[in-house]
């Protein structure tokens, strides 16, 4: 279908005509009996994969099946931090691939995803932190990823609200700053990909929960059973975040995943006071300010596996303790909302974007607590993997077999904290 193009002019024209003739952003099609390929999971990663399958690989007879609504899962529940300063070569290549796509994504989709490279500053509080971060800075530089070391005074210059006094429990001893990092509007990423994929002919089917994966006599996939009937497909890409283990178990595939609640919260909205993103892995504080004015705060994971999309309050309290030490002026700020999402965590804290042992079944999972930043890059290489039945060079190391063969991409050990 032809798509209205967004521009300053179109905004003015429709503003003057009372905003009455805007199109729906995507259709609400009923599922066809079969497609060339199906993506299970209508979050940013899945919608993006559908978009790139249609745009770059010519597969337009495809569908995205979402059990809830578009943008209602982890895409709408994260703290929108974007960065690529990971230690290992494989990770740096994957996440920087994503950052490079972020930089032009609004133009490509004709949809404002509000990418804002305002800088991501990671705080060091111990001698070990200083050593690890400096190692990251050097490793990143070798991989062409920007990252620089800041002394405490320089960190305060970059983020004037930061308390660099020596009288707090974990004083700031320095920071690593990635200036190309920042934030984006999370809902807009899902909506933008959905709109662009839909205009290329992709069927986006909401309220459609997959209940079984059908396989033929040779074991290859031939379709899915869903809450809206049987849908055939020779290729199925699973991009189901916390529910990946559940979906893959329908095809008898076991994965090295555990699903945990990850919580976040926002404050009441205030005027612009916070110019960047500040993270502290050591004392568990992640904070930025949205364009609406809310402080967006990321907390940690709960201790136990769960599918409830909620967690315990003491996890949030722990993070707010750290925020109040680093930014004492926020002590009287009221928190407005908190929520949880379910994240699928691998043993090495790196994702899996790969073929599975089942023919025609592909999986993009294991993003743990940090999948949002990778949305466009992950979708791009996942589409390649599905279309060509072989991995893109960037995601080739991110297999399931790496756990058997000992080629872990151990960002868990590299960060030396739960993350």
């Amino acid at each position, binding site marked *: 279908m032809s798509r209205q193009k967004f521009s300053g002019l179109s905004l003015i024209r429709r503003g003057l005509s009372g905003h009455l003739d805007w199109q729906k952003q995507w259709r609400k099609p009923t599922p066809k009996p079969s497609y060339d390929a199906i993506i299970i999971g209508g979050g940013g990663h899945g919608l993006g994969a559908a978009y790139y399958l249609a745009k770059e690989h010519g597969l337009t007879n495809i569908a995205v099946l979402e059990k809830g609504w578009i943008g209602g899962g982890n895409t709408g529940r994260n703290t929108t931090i974007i960065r690529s300063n990971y230690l290992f070569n494989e990770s740096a290549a994957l996440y920087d691939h994503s950052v490079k796509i972020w930089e032009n994504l609004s133009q490509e989709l004709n949809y404002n995803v509000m990418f804002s490279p305002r800088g991501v500053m990671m705080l060091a509080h111990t001698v070990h932190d200083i050593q690890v971060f400096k190692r990251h800075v050097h490793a990143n530089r070798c991989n062409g990823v920007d990252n620089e070391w800041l002394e405490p005074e320089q960190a305060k210059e970059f983020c004037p609200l930061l308390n660099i006094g020596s009288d707090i429990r974990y004083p700031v001893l320095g920071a690593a700053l990635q200036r190309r990092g920042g934030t984006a509007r999370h809902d807009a990423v899902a909506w933008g990909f959905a709109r662009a994929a839909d205009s290329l002919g992709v069927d986006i089917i909401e309220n459609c929960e997959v209940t079984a994966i059908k396989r033929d006599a040779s074991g290859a996939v031939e379709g899915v059973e869903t809450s809206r009937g049987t849908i055939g497909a020779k290729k199925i890409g699973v991009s189901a975040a916390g529910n990946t*283990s559940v979906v893959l178990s329908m095809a008898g595939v076991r994965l090295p995943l555990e*699903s945990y609640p990850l919580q976040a919260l926002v404050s009441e909205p205030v005027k612009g006071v916070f110019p960047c993103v500040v993270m502290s892995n050591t004392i568990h504080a992640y904070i930025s300010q949205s364009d609406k004015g809310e402080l967006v705060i990321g907390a940690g994971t709960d201790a*136990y*596996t769960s*599918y409830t999309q909620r967690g*315990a309050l003491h996890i949030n309290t722990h993070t707010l303790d750290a925020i109040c030490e680093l930014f004492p002026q926020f002590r009287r700020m009221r928190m407005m909302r908190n929520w949880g999402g379910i994240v699928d965590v691998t043993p090495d804290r790196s994702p899996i974007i790969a073929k599975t042992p089942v023919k025609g079944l592909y999986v993009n999972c294991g993003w743990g607590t940090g999948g949002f930043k990778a949305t466009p890059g992950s979708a791009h290489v996942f589409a390649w993997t599905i279309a060509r039945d072989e991995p893109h060079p960037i995601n080739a190391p991110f297999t399931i077999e790496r756990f058997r063969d000992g080629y872990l991409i151990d960002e868990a050990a590299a960060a030396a904290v739960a993350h």
Partner: protein
Amino acid sequence: MLLIVCPYCGKRPELEFTYGGEAHLTRPERPAELDDQTWTDFLYMRTNLKGLYAERWRHARGCGRFFNALRDTTTDHFLATYKTGTPRPDLPVTASTAGSRK
């Protein structure tokens, strides 16, 4: 915060406990004799079940002992806790327990 019944000490707040992951995984007696895939399955692969899950907890800031629990991961409701080494209680998820959050 969850309230968890330690089989040795009784009902205590979640803060006193640490989580131990999936229960009833038995370490193979002679890992060196296993093929790589079997050893990988033991080390890394997990059921990650959505539903009634048998898992280990440790009363770390109490008696210090490990024990097992049956918890519904769709509600976080504990149906039973039992001592390590004893078999998993045979508890089906019923409609009344699946939806409750006591």
